[in-house]
């Protein structure tokens, strides 16, 4: 089980969180092509290495935030608030 550092509450066990998938995906303009919509909707980086992802502290403060985790070791490298980079 991961120990996840919530930027608002501190380090808590994974069971308090839900996973929100790849971070920093921007919604395209409504005029976007089918390819752009498909990329937004379905394509993911699926990085082997440091991966920026969203987590939500569901059973805590309830807030979304971002984590960078190395997917080859599951080690969490850092966490930061939504809107930050």
């Amino acid at each position: 089980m991961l120990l996840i550092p919530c930027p608002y509450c501190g380090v808590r066990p994974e069971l308090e969180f839900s996973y929100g998938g790849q971070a920093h995906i921007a919604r395209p303009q409504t005029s976007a092509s089918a390819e752009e919509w498909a990329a937004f909707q379905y394509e993911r980086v699926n990085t082997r290495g440091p991966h920026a992802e969203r987590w939500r502290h569901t059973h805590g403060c309830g807030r979304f935030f971002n984590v960078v985790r190395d997917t080859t070791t599951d080690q969490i490298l850092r966490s930061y608030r939504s809107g930050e980079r």
Partner: protein
Amino acid sequence: MRSRFSGWSLLLGGLTGQRGWREQWRAATPKKGYDALIVGGGGHGLAAAYYLAKEHGIRNVAVLEKGWIGGGNTGRNTTVIRSNYLFSESSSLYDHAVKLWETLSQELNYNVMYSPRGVLMLAHNVHDCQVSQRHIHANYANGVDNEWLTPAQAKAYCPPLNIGSELRYPVLGGALQRRGGTARHDAVAWGYARAADALGVDIIENCEVTGLKRDANGAVVAVETNRGVIESRRIGVSAAGHSTVVLQMAGVRLPLESFPLQALVSEPVKPIFPCVVMSNTIHAYISQSDKGELVIGASTDAYTSYTQRGALHVSLHTLEAVCELFPAFRRMRMLRNWGGIVDVTPDRSPIVAKTPVPGLYVNCGWGTGGFKATPGAGHLLAWTMAHDAPHPLNAAFTIERFRDGLLIDEAAAAAVSH
């Protein structure tokens, strides 16, 4: 050419202290180039190489495996085989594989221990019952067997099952596919490797593909590996959890993510469990191997990862469900657990298709349930590579279906895995 296995050869082996057995395939070293390359020596990749040689006469083929063959998900899965999927595209795809399983041991002259002992999928609430009935009727229309069992019939089919009303999620019935069952995971990889090798296919282990080379028109011309450059203008990628990593080498992005999926086995006991039982609602699935171990599958972790291990709370959750459904197993001890990296698409259906890059083909996205498809996936990847066009059975399983809104949404149909 290796000697054929037969009842007599096994008897003779037994009488001579099992000392006469030889290697079953060559440890090949890479040649300068091949007519076709397969990246990934799991069951799917090995099967593809076999069918390229056997059915399409393309024998100058190599399978490149970064570790040892069958060391990926092929050697890590819980071997549940069934074809009772909802949509016509899926049930015909998976049933194609089940039909190949039925004669595979004879085809390969290698005992893959395919055992159609029946797969019973439990229903625990009204929604489950309705979904099961919908599947049964859809399967019936597609000529795929699947039948409804009452709780008493389910108990008669699988005596350890608890059908008592005291359960938090009582058993209200189940859908049984009698042709479903299990097979021996390693034997499938070894059987295909041996049969492909006999047709001239080079099986090259410890050979990791690190790059894909392309010509001025963008077509693939070679792979870069830790054992040098190997040329080919026809490359099929069958790398399961690492599919996005390999396809990225040619700039192709895929709609899939890689998650750890776990399984565990108990200490071996005498035969007690006659079939496969799955419950999607409380997430447990279980069978007993011929060695006597209970083989139990857990779910994926919540997050993407390449670590080949899963969190303990995930397997604990499954064990709680197993103990509730089969109280007799409460004091069984678990022997080992492990994880594999599964390639999950948004609609939980695979991709067996051409890619936008000429000469590059992909077989991936089988996620948590591709072992059952091994012969079929290999057969269809080989066909697609040989014809540069899909077979009718995999024509719908493209990458472009996501752009075009033509999902084959088995995920929404049942939230089923395996």
